């Protein structure tokens, strides 16, 4: 049964995973996302759905557990925050190269280094441009509400299994920590071993009635390894064709365009309202998939605008993709806060005026 609850984004991730019939979670505590593991341990899903929950000895161990679980055809996931996700990069590259479905959640905090436990979006490059080694991509989903934290767990797994590729929920610390109403989906049954054998004929389940299956990314024959790479690239082109998601608000008739993702897109809604009171028409594009990036949608929304402002909790990362989207034909500027600071709507509106309007006078 669906259920309406009030909870934190991080808690919603845990509840959603159980209800979306997760087989296993492997994670290591780090602020601001420790509630995911805490909630799972408190819910004890091993007694109800049979889901495995394990506090690993490190993020390196956790991602490698996810790699193995994915190779078994299981719906497995991990969650962490920025420094922990850095530790997982080798494992992510292995998962992508072994063509395995897995869900990874990064509730971002401020960096670089140990940085701060407060919110950030500065892992955009790492998530979208391939933080680990080699030519690979992950599907990157950016939730802006607790409801999306919940919904993207199911969406992430669906996409990961459809394309046999890792998917990441890239949330900022605000979405992880804030409390909102959320509609939790009804409980799905976990797949049986027979169903997994049928749906994932590649899965490592013991070679009953078939030839050996091997989960591996190793191929020392140069031509075969090149073929593998070409196959990965074909999958990425398919994903780019089919899976771009974004939300456009007021983009048909606006003077300036704001581009922001995650919780910052919601701050931009307030900016848009405040600007309208002053007679300034703003539109917002909120990329929901950060990879694949909504280049065409932004180009369309940008038609006729006087300028584009990207608002980010970083020094300007997504702005590079927005510039690509409009081929630098329109002026694109960036306003960002760092160190765990979050801009107020006033601040963003003033920045827009400073950067585009007052300057021109």
């Amino acid at each position, binding site marked *: 049964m669906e259920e309406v609850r009030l909870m934190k984004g991080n808690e919603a991730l845990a509840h959603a995973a159980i209800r979306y019939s997760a087989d296993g979670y492997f994670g290591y505590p780090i602020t601001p996302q420790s509630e995911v593991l805490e909630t799972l341990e408190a819910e004890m899903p091993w007694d109800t759905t049979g889901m495995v929950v394990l506090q*690993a000895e490190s993020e390196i161990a956790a991602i490698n557990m996810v*790699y193995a679980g994915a190779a078994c055809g299981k719906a497995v996931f991990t969650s962490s925050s920025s420094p922990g996700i850095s530790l997982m990069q080798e494992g992510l590259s292995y998962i992508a190269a072994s063509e395995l479905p897995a869900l990874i959640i990064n509730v971002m905090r401020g960096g670089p280094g140990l940085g701060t436990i407060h919110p950030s979006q500065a892992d955009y490059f790492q998530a979208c441009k391939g933080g680990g080694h080699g030519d690979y991509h992950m599907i990157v989903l950016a939730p802006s509400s607790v409801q999306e934290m919940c919904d993207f767990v199911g969406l992430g797994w669906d996409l990961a299994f459809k394309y046999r590729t890792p998917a990441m929920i890239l949330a900022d610390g605000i979405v992880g920590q804030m409390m909102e109403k959320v509609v939790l989906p009804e409980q799905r049954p976990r797949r049986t071993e027979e169903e997994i054998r049928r749906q994932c004929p590649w899965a490592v389940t013991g070679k009953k009635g078939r030839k050996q299956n091997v*989960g591996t990314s190793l191929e020392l024959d140069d031509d075969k390894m090149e073929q593998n790479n070409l196959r990965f690239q074909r999958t990425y082109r398919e994903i780019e064709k089919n899976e771009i998601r974004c939300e456009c608000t007021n983009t048909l008739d606006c003077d300036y365009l704001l581009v922001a993702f995650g919780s910052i897109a919601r701050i931009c809604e307030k900016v848009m309202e405040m600007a309208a009171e002053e007679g300034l028409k703003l539109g917002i594009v909120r990329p929901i998939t950060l990879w694949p990036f909504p280049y065409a949608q932004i180009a369309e929304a940008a038609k006729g605008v006087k300028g584009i402002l990207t608002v980010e909790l970083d020094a300007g990362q997504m702005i590079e993709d927005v510039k690509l989207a409009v081929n630098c034909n329109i002026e694109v500027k960036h306003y960002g806060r760092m160190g765990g600071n979050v801009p107020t709507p006033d601040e963003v509106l003033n920045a827009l005026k400073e950067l585009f309007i007052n300057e021109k006078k």
Partner: protein
Amino acid sequence: MDINDIIKPENRIYKRPSLLTDSHMHYCPGCSHGVVHKLIAEIIEEMGMEESAIGVAPVGCAVFAYNYIDVDFVEAAHGRAPALATAIKRLQPDKLVFTYQGDGDLAAIGTGETIHAANRGENIAIIFINNAIYGMTGGQMAPTTLLGMKTATTPYGRRADLNGYPLAISNLVAQLDGSCYVTRQSVQSPAAVRKAKAAIRKAFENSMAGKGTSMVEIVSTCNSGWKLTPEQSNKWMEEHMFAKYPLGDLKNV
């Protein structure tokens, strides 16, 4: 008596295990890896676990173990095999799950995964090839390299003041409450091979019985890395390796 009276199926006392594939092994002649592979294939077949065995291959000379042992496998990142095995066994408790790892994989980069999997008492078997060197990357120092031993990165011999001491990690694992069986074996003679086989079988049986983590260390040779002939290697191992890594059970509960 005609030779055909002797060569009959009922007289057969030894055969290639059916799970050992026909693939040409890439191991150097004289290397211990091939012998241990054969034992694993033989034991899985004898236990009737062909359809439910899942191996985890390391990064090291045995990275292609799955090309030789014909059961399902996952190929781990360097050192992470016990983490992979943990997840596989927890998600599929009815399977026989084992790792196969070298000393660099298990006792250097993967020390954390080894200790913690064993400390959690994961119901897995760890097969540990201790050849005191990094075979695959060309013979560099391993954590298990003996003092004075020359390697590519200790060209004048391992020095305690520069490189620390050889690590007897099995002794550490034996201290942990989660391990149930830790033993040190070798495969340089028929008698040793028979003992090693019994040890691996016991480790596999323990993991199916849910007794905790079992680890079988095989003190091994790497004649290419050691720059000795296979025969000299066996002798060198007996004379030098066994002093630091004495054979026998370290724990059996």
